[in-house]
């Protein structure tokens, strides 16, 4: 087993001179206990010490998990199948209560301990650290008052948290708030092992600073011998950079392949260089990642990871091909008509736009496909081709509009080839 973690300041935080509010941790001890943690301090003026809150949460989780694992009766876990537990609040909403085993009580104690220690630690920190000059300048008066009175103190330090823990006999993971925890199995199939909480939507999230935080933990465990090959934890700055979840998963596959091919050191260096770039290109948010993986199992699964990438790329090409065919039908149908209606002229323009855009998208996907085919089959690979093919050059056209660009007087011009 190996692990790494990294967190860095986001592009928008650099621009506003705000510290990185994410924190990450990973460690494997001599007994094979692996822990990975990511905590994401909230943004916003109210949460002006959330970077400290995220660091405390990370440290407290790491310590509590070690204590939990070394003191718990491991028979609670051994033999247990893959089990996912939603937040109690979700169970209440659904009137479907499932936490009835001793193992569930054990988890509740762990989570209560994490929250309790975190609250103690932030109270101590607030008492030891009066408002700094910078805080005095930047924080609105009402939040200063709250800080000084101790009222809503936990809000000021609020953060989300997620952790993955693996021992030689079992593993578990827990999550409170947003961000994504992705696992891969031996077949290179990915999964989000901890159930999602629908209350986390856009920039709203559950948090350790919520009054009912204990009821908001979601968790998963397994003790029947099944283990993930690799697990990646990422703050919401990561998943917001990739949009669709398969894009995020694809990035983790890219990292996993690098771990096998380029080795740990080179990959970790790449991760450290890539995340700030990703923040700039993507979410602008702070970025954190933590990973635990099985080196040997990952190596064995490598071809399947490439095949997975080939499969999703193929699916993307098929989807784009359908767009091309559908838009071409629309265009051909309109071109057969004498277009007198404004609406038809617009529809023709959109059909051609859709075709152009779809072919451009296809070009990128085919390029990606050929890289992957070469990676899988070697230099003798057969480049990707299909019946839809490339855009006929004589049909490559762009629209130029007359002097009223957002109304409907349109002119065709030939694209320079």
């Amino acid at each position: 087993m190996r692990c790494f973690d990294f967190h860095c300041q986001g592009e928008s935080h650099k621009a506003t001179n705000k510290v990185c509010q994410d924190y990450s941790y990973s460690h494997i001890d001599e007994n094979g206990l692996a822990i990975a943690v990511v905590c994401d301090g909230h943004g916003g003026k109210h949460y002006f010490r959330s970077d400290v809150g995220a660091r405390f949460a990370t440290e407290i989780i790491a310590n509590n998990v070690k204590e939990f694992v070394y003191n718990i009766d491991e028979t609670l876990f051994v033999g247990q199948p893959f089990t996912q537990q939603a937040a109690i609040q979700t169970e209440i909403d659904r009137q479907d209560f499932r936490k009835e085993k001793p193992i569930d009580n054990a988890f509740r104690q762990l989570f209560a301990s994490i929250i309790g220690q975190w609250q103690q630690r932030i109270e101590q920190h607030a008492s030891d650290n009066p408002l700094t000059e910078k805080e005095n300048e930047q924080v609105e008066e009402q939040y200063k008052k709250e800080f000084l009175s101790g009222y809503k103190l936990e809000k000021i330090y609020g953060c989300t948290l997620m952790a993955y823990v693996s021992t030689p006999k079992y593993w578990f993971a827990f999550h409170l708030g947003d961000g994504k925890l992705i696992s891969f199995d031996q077949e290179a199939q990915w999964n989000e092992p901890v159930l999602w909480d629908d209350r986390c939507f856009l920039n709203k999230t559950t948090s350790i600073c919520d009054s009912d935080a204990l009821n908001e933990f979601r968790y998963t465990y397994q003790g029947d011998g099944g283990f993930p090959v690799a697990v990646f934890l990422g703050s919401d700055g990561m998943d917001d950079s990739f949009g669709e979840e398969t894009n995020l998963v694809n990035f983790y596959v890219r990292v996993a392949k690098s771990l096998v091919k380029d080795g740990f050191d080179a990959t970790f260096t790449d991760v450290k260089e890539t995340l700030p770039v990703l923040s700039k290109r993507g979410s602008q948010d702070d970025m954190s990642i933590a990973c635990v993986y099985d080196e040997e199992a990952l190596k064995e699964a490598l071809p399947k990871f490439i095949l997975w990438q080939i499969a999703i790329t193929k699916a993307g090409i098929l989807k784009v091909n359908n767009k091309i065919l559908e838009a071409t039908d629309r265009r051909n149908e309109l071109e057969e008509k004498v277009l007198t209606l404004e609406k038809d002229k617009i529809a023709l323009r959109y059909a051609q736009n859709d075709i152009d855009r779809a072919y451009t998208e296809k070009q990128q996907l085919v390029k990606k496909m050929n890289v992957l085919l070469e990676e899988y089959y070697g230099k003798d690979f057969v480049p990707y081709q299909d019946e839809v093919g490339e855009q006929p050059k004589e049909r490559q056209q762009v629209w130029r509009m007359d002097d009223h660009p957002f109304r409907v007087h349109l002119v065709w011009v030939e694209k320079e080839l």
Partner: protein
Amino acid sequence: MSLLDETVSVPRRTMTLFFMIDTSGSMAGSKIGAVNDAVVNVLPMLDEISVTNPDAEIKVAALEFSTGCNWLYNEPKLANEFVWQDVQANGLTSLGAACEELENKLSRSKGFMQSASGSFAPAIILLSDGAPTDNFEAGLAKLKGNNWFKSAIKVAIAIGDDADKEVLAKFTGTNEAVFTVHNIDALKQIIRVVAVTSSQIGSKSSTAGDTTKQDQVISEVQNAVDNIDGAEVATKVDGSSYADDWD
């Protein structure tokens, strides 16, 4: 070697701006003409915000409602590609049906939205000069259960004194987000201000804070309204300062 090679996709984030436009019979004439002109003129501004904004691209969708409702296009279009088709006014005011239709499209599986990761909350601008003639409450109740709607920036423009401001306030969730206009110029200006402000604020990265994007938009539009002759915040307690003039 970068991990962001040609096998990895990092798409731009998206914010969708929805126009919900009352095209009932009472809008006929100068009102609908002003709406058509104002939206056409604001599209290039939205495009500029989209192009110069590193955080997100802006897409536009438009739903007209009269007797029933109709999307101008069956998907949101990029601001620079949106070709406005002048809308015509006639019929009743099916705002309830429009709410239901908006609810249908504020979803990923069957609608206009993408994954929440990588999206910003939408901005919704409702324009109306009257009162609903269908079951508005039922439509709104359905819409209010929608997560995208809950997170959206919602602003309403009441066109003239006959607009039911109470209904518009129910839609936006606060009467502070309802702005009344009393003449053509004010209508054109307020459409521009609301669309541009919503797009600027809505398409910027922000983290969970205490001031919502809707509050930021309301605050900026309220400031702008002070300088628009014939426009006012609908909550004005001492009565309207203006008389309607739509000729």
